[in-house]
């Protein structure tokens, strides 16, 4: 199951540090913890996530260029879409020669989970007006994972904003570095960059494959998409797979096969929100 933000506290990338020694590693986030210690811990977690995500953004920038986008389009995606899996999904469809609107549809479906994160976060953030418009853009896997599950709303809000703003900053810087770097390459294909995208998807998918049913569903979706390739326009096979997911989700489940709540599985849903991994 998920470890949640409280579980990440004792798994910071740099291991035990003076602060984590003080508060003890077994229970990193006790309710009676002094706010300053909590704040230090939350900020450090957020920083680790942001750095790891920034490194990941470099590969996004490079893959987007290899897929046929120009630097400005790539930067616009990271600035305005700002949700990793959707961005990769859009460039994947366009790179394959699909209609940009099919790419947009793929991106939007991949971003649907952010709406459910927002449901959880609305109670914690309690934002309205312009502030809500701004906070909404920061609703992503990482900021949600570092927010929900904190002991106090104050710590949860700090986790959300620190992670959201930190990731936003480094995600866009990383994208710039990757895109500009790749724009200097004569032939990205010679470097195998066209295989980098499926590898990135595999790394995103693996932590979500919990249990036999999800494995089976993933295989069915892959089969449907591959078999549809010669039959329908580019970009549509992936949308058909999305339809498989919708149908599977509409079938009511009973007993033990409860639906995985996206907000509960996000801790490992993307490699960049796992502070246990070394940010490189």
């Amino acid at each position, binding site marked *: 199951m998920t470890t949640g933000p409280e579980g990440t506290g004792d798994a910071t990338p740099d291991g035990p540090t003076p602060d984590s020694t003080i508060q003890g590693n077994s229970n990193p986030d006790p309710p009676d913890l002094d706010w300053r210690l909590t704040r230090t811990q939350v900020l450090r977690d957020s920083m680790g996530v942001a750095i790891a995500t920034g490194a990941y953004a470099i590969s996004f920038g490079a893959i987007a260029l290899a897929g046929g986008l120009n630097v400005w389009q790539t930067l616009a995606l990271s600035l305005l879409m700002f949700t990793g*899996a959707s961005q990769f999904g859009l460039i994947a469809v366009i790179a*394959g020669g699909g209609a940009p609107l099919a790419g*947009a549809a793929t991106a*939007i479906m991949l971003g649907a989970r952010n709406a*459910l994160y927002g449901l959880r976060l609305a109670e914690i953030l309690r934002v309205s007006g312009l502030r809500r418009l701004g906070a909404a853009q920061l609703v992503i896997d990482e900021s949600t994972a570092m927010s929900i599950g904190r002991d106090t709303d104050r710590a949860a809000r700090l986790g959300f904003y620190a992670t959201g703003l930190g990731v936003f900053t480094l995600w866009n810087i990383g994208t710039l570095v990757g895109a500009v770097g790749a724009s200097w390459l004569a032939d990205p*294909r010679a470097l195998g960059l*066209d295989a980098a995208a499926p590898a990135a998807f595999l790394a995103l998918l693996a932590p979500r494959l919990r249990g036999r049913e*999800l494995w089976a569903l993933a295989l069915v979706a892959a089969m449907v998409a591959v078999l549809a390739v010669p039959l329908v326009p580019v970009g549509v096979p992936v949308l058909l797979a999305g339809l498989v*997911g919708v149908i599977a989700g509409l079938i009511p489940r009973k007993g033990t096969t409860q639906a995985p709540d996206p907000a509960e*599985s996000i801790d490992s849903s993307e490699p960049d929100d796992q502070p246990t991994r070394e940010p490189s």
Partner: protein
Amino acid sequence: MTIWIGIAVGCLGCYLLKLAGLSVPKSVLERPAVHRIAALLPVVLLAALIAVQTFSDGRSLVIDARAAGLAVAAVAVWRRWPFLLVVALAAVTTALVRQLIPAS
């Protein structure tokens, strides 16, 4: 130009989804089917993207150097190696196979 339209629509859609979560009454989205679908969509879409991007050239099915790259990536993911290493190994493997077998 059409790429910009796709980007604009995609960005707007993704933003409105984020905003909707913070804005709509909880009861609207707080349904088991909605949760299941939102959780399953990344699984099916990512699986489909992996399959299509590795085994097709857009119009027809092919097996080429990318399959070798994906296989290496699968091992790296299974071994829980860092994300960037996974991506880099897939790219390097694919590039090497292309060097050895120019047609792939």
